[in-house]
C-alpha cells in the first residue's frame, strides 16, 4: 500500500500564545482507505482538516503528502492532491450544477484562462459518476440537500486527486440521502481507489463502512489528542463512547448474512458526569 498522507506530531493553535486546539497528533492514510475522525463539537476536527488542506499552518509537527512535506508545496498545488467537500456549500449565486463542477478544475487552469474542452469533459464525467448528469443545467441553489452534497462530491472528483477531505458531509441530510452519500463514498473508494478523510458526528458511519467491507480506520479526537485509533471493532465500544461523548451506549449485533453481523451503537442516555 502507498501512504498518501502522513501526519507527524501535529500541534496547532490559532495564535502563538493561545491554548492548543490539538497537539502531538499522528496518523497515516493509505491509498484506498477511509479515515474517520470522530469527536464532540469543538474538539478540533475541523481545525485538523483545515491544516491538512493547507488553510492553516501547524505550529508543531509536519504533514507529508505522498512523502513530500506540505511546506514545500506552492499555494494551489495541494489542491492537485487533496480535494475538499464542505459540510454544506453556503452559496449565494445560483450557478448551474455544471458550472459548479467545472470549478473543480481550478487547480489545473491558468489564472487568466477558463476551463478547456478537456476540463469540461472531466467535469461531465465526474457528474456522471455521482449519477446527476440530468441536473447539469439546473441552478445549484434549487437542489435538495442530498443532491447538492453529491454535486460537491462531483466537484471534488473533477479535481482528480488521490484523496478527498470531507467535513461532516451528511450532517444536514435526511435519512435516505445520508445513506446515498455514504453509498457514493463506498462506491468511489472501491472503484476509483480514492482515499477519504472524513470528519463525522456519527460513530455508526464507521460501522457502515466496515459493514461494506471497506478498510475504515477511525480516530477518536478528545482533549487535544486521539483517545483511540483503529478499526471500528477495536475502538468503537461502550467505554470509549462514554469517555468521548459522555453518552451511555449499547453495542448491538444482528445477524446479516451467513458470515457477518451488522453492528450498531445505540445511545441509551447521557452519562451522569461528563468526562
Amino acid at each position, binding site marked *: 500500500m502507498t501512504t498518501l498522507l502522513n501526519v507527524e506530531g501535529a500541534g496547532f493553535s*490559532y495564535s502563538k500564545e493561545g491554548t492548543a486546539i490539538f497537539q502531538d497528533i499522528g496518523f497515516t492514510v493509505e491509498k484506498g482507505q477511509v479515515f474517520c475522525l470522530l469527536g464532540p463539537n469543538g474538539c478540533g476536527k475541523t481545525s485538523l482538516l*483545515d491544516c491538512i*488542506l*493547507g*488553510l492553516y499552518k501547524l505550529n508543531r509537527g509536519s504533514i507529508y503528502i505522498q512523502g513530500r512535506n506540505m511546506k514545500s508545496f506552492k*499555494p*494551489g*498545488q*495541494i*489542491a*492537485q492532491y*487533496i*480535494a*475538499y467537500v*464542505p459540510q454544506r*456549500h*453556503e*452559496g*449565494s*449565486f*445560483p*450557478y*448551474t450544477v455544471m*458550472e459548479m463542477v467545472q*470549478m*473543480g478544475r*481550478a*487547480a*489545473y*487552469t491558468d*489564472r*487568466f*484562462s*477558463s*476551463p478547456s474542452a478537456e476540463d469540461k469533459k472531466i467535469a461531465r464525467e465526474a457528474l456522471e459518476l455521482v449519477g446527476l448528469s440530468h441536473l447539469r443545467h439546473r*441552478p445549484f*441553489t*434549487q437542489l435538495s440537500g442530498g443532491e447538492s452534497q453529491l454535486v460537491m462530491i462531483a*466537484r471534488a472528483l473533477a*479535481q482528480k486527486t488521490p484523496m478527498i*477531505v470531507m467535513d461532516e458531509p451528511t450532517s444536514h441530510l435526511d435519512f435516505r440521502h445520508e445513506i446515498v452519500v455514504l453509498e457514493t463514498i463506498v462506491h468511489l473508494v472501491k472503484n476509483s481507489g480514492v482515499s477519504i478523510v472524513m470528519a463525522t458526528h456519527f460513530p455508526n458511519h464507521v460501522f457502515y463502512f466496515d459493514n461494506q467491507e471497506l478498510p475504515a480506520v477511525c480516530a477518536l479526537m478528545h482533549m487535544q489528542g486521539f483517545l483511540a485509533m483503529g478499526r471500528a471493532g477495536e475502538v468503537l465500544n461502550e467505554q470509549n463512547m462514554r469517555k468521548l461523548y459522555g453518552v451511555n451506549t449499547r453495542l448491538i449485533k444482528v445477524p446479516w448474512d451467513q458470515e457477518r453481523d451488522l453492528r450498531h451503537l445505540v445511545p441509551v442516555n447521557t452519562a451522569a458526569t461528563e468526562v
Partner: protein
Amino acid sequence: MKRKAIYILLVLAPLFCIFSSLFVGRYALSFDTVTNVLWCKLAGAFCYEAATAQTLVWDIRLPRVLLGGLVGGCLAISGAAFQGLFRNPLVSSGILGVSSGAGFGAALAIILFHGSTIAIYTFAFGFALLAVLASYMIGRVYSTTPSIMLVLGGTIVSSVFAALISFAKYVADPYQELPSIVFWLMGSLATASFTDLAIAGGPMIIGIVGLIGIKWRINVLSMGDREAHALGINLFVDKGLVIIFATLATAGAVCVSGIIGWVGLIIPHICRMLVGNDNRVLIPASLSLGACFLIMVDDAGRIITGGEIPLGILTALIGAPFFVWLLKQTKGGGWS
C-alpha cells in the same frame, strides 16, 4: 453557439449606441454629415462639412459618448467583479470606498486649487486608491483578508470619507467652490474631451482587460475562502488582482465623471437575469450593458432639458423603474 451569438451582440450593442448617440443633442445633424465627418477624421482626409458640424461630432459628442461608454462599462464590470468576490449581490463598485475617496479628493482639489481639472483628476484618483488601500489594511487579519472584514473595512473608510466630504463642503466658499463640489458629486460627462479619455483611459482599460482576463477565477473566488483555497486558488494573489483591476477601473471612471451611483449595482444584476451568473459571460455582459446604459442615460440628460441634468440623478430615475420591470419579467431569475 448560443454563447457566440451573445458575445457578438455584446460587442455590437455598444458600437450601435456610440454611433447613434452622435445624432443626439440640441443641434440636429443628418446621417450623411455624421458619417462624412467620422470618415474624413478617421481617414485623415479633408473635410467638406461645416466647421460647426465637425466640432460637434468629433470634438464634443464623440469623446463624450466614448467616455460615457467607458465609464458605464467600468462601473458595471467592477460592480459585477466585487459582487462575485464578496459573494454578495448587494455590493456595488463603491464597496471599498472608491467613490467616497474620489469624492473627497475632488472636493479637496476644488478648494485647494480652485477647480483645476488636472488637480481634480489627480486628487480624485489618488484618494480613490488610498481609500481602497485603507479598506484592505483594515480588513487584514491573521495575514489573510476575509471578505466580511474587507466589506467592514470598506464601510468604515466610506463613512470617514463621507464625513470628510461634508467637512470640505462646510469650509468651502459657498459661492464658487461649494456648487462645484456638489455638482461634481452628482456626476457629469458634460465637459468630456479627448484629453479626459487620454488621462483616465489608461487605468480604465487596464482594469477592464484585467477583469475580463481573470473572470473565471471570480467564479471560484465566490465559493468562499475555504473552498476557493481547497480548489487550488492562491487567495492572496487572486483576490488582490481582482481588487486592483476593479479599483483601477472604478477610480479611472469616477475621477473624470464624478460619482455616478447605481450603475455598478443594477447593471450586473440585470445581466445576471439576462445571461446567468457565470462570470465568464457576466463580466463581459456587464461591461457591454453598462456602456450602453450610461451612453443612453447621458443622451437622455442632453435632450430632456436645455440645461444638463447631472448623471447621478438620471441613472437612478431611469434605472430603477427599468430594474423593477425586469425583476417582474424574470421573476428574479433563479434568485429568491
